[in-house]
């Protein structure tokens, strides 16, 4: 194939405009296998929009998004998920009225059709997997608790757990440590370092300390375009970045 790529995720010439305003403008970047790639940038830089575009929530006006050489821009949301892309939202997006166990169970990748869900059996494989994930996200003792009553940090972990149970190849996290206490933040970094085995992670984050801890590569967005890209060390010392972002 002419434009095939070795990258897990290849975003090329991606553009989206809302009523003429280009929220993302001719953006290109690549994510390798097993790479933690962090996107930073000031408010309104288009960070969340980029994730929305990749997971199909927003339709691109132009450009291409290739995941393992499969074009995502034409696929529906649930097909993108099945292809192996998981996405965590900025605000913890969990099912308040269900228990932690049920939250994880719904995310378990089986019985995703109407009749599959009707016939779904909560067998040993499901229970073991849920228990395993719950252990990982520090919620093993809360399985029967309604998700509504979890703390903010626990809700964020639950959502990460809901993604992990899908075992996606590419995990996209939108501000995973926003609003967390110092202690929770530390645990989250530990969690992220644990879960990156055999997968790539694309993270949006404001917390520079946290970014330094986890990032393999950093992309700085500004007004829908790339301002700088490279290791955290390089990006931090880029005068353009200092001017628009880090300086404040």
């Amino acid at each position, binding site marked *: 194939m002419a434009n095939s790529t070795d990258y897990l995720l290849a975003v090329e010439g991606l553009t989206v405009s809302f009523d003429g305003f280009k929220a993302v403008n001719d953006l290109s970047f690549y994510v390798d296998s097993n790479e933690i790639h962090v996107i930073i940038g000031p408010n309104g830089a288009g960070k969340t929009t980029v994730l929305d575009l990749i997971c199909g929530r927003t339709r691109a006006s132009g450009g291409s998004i290739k995941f393992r050489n499969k074009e995502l821009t034409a696929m529906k949301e649930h097909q993108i998920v099945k292809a192996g892309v998981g996405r965590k*939202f900025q605000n913890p997006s969990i099912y*308040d*009225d269900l228990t932690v166990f*049920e939250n994880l169970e*719904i995310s378990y990748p089986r019985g995703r059709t109407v009749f599959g869900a*009707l016939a779904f059996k909560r067998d040993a494989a499901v229970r073991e997997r849920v228990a395993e994930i719950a252990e990982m996200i520090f919620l093993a003792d809360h399985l029967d608790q309604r998700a509504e009553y979890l703390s903010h940090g626990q809700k964020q972990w639950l959502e990460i757990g809901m993604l992990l149970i899908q075992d996606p190849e590419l995990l996209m996290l939108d501000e995973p440590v926003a609003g967390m206490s110092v202690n929770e933040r530390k645990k989250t970094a530990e969690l992220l370092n644990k879960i990156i085995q055999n997968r790539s992670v694309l993270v949006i984050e404001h917390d520079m300390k946290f970014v330094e801890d986890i990032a393999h590569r950093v992309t700085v967005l500004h007004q829908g375009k790339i301002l700088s890209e490279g290791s955290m060390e390089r990006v931090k010392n880029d005068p353009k970045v200092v001017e628009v972002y880090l300086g404040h």
Partner: protein
Amino acid sequence: MTRTPNSRFFGRLDGDIAGILLLAALLIVVLPLGLDIFRLNMVGKYLTYAFVALGLVLCWGSAGILSLGQGIFFGIGGYCMAMFLKLEASSPEATKIQSTPGIPDFMDWNQLKALPWFWEPFHSLTFATIAVVAVPALLAFIVGLAMFKRRVGGVYFAIITQAFAAILTILIVGQQGYTGGINGITDLRTLKGWDIRTDEAKLVLYFVNAALLIGCILLCLYVRRSKLGRILVALRDKEDRVRFSGYDVANFKIFVFCFAAALSAVGGAMFTLQVGFMSPSFVGIVPSIEMVIYCAVGGRLSLLGAVYGTLLVNWAKTMLSESFPELWLFAMGALFIGVVMVFPNGLAGLYQQFIAPRLRRPAGRRTDEAAGAPIIPPHTAAD
């Protein structure tokens, strides 16, 4: 930690099943013993609306899809049954004084000379019985496909269903020769030669109706306790999260809408059998909204609550209409406002908040956790 797997849910006596047994005892033993056949037939009529309320519990309560047009499906179910009964009542001998004998009387009055093509298959009871469920489900499928695939939801969906209810009423009233118009299909007599107007027939039909209702409650309970039931609750909470967990959300909404439509239609067919006619006054906007009120008063999150709510509101309606006919509409409006403002989870919500905890403690029963109860959040359970 041990958990009760899905397959064993029906194997043990839990709160929901106990509640259903209690309702069954009330409907099948207490009421037939305590009421004369006139009142019992009336309860039977009320119970046909409970089928609609059950559908709404799943569609509106669980999945958060408010349909203000369930009368459509109740009506179509009722009409399918009425068409069969009407054809049986319109034998050439029974209608020999008409200018065209052998067709329903209203067709003759409207100068129709032959039975319309879509009436023909309703000579067969089997066809009519299948049509009772299949036609409304198919219609719901088409409406659902058109709406949910385009992600029309919430208030917009409610308004569109209401528009459909209005359209169907106008269609039925306008096409008098084919539908019986504003009077509906009346003067129904026998079912396969069995006179449905006698007291004995009414008693038998009451029991058939009650048994069907219990069966439908069990079916609804099964759906709610499956993973599909939990997905419906999940998509009411966070539709996007469900979508980004790999589910095609629209398909689940279409399913629950069709399921609710089929339930309503069963109620409609039983209505026709017990009351002896079907008319557009059970199809339109007002009856559709009344059906939502039954469900809301009983508790839209509770299957059993919806049944009790339907019985209670209808009983109140009959009482009030017998003494102060002009007051009913105001009372209904007040009831709806009251439910929405003061007790949004209806009677079932009040029961769970105030009565259930008292019942549980003195009896010294094991708590839900200790009994290893299935992990269903308290308010999604049946009672």
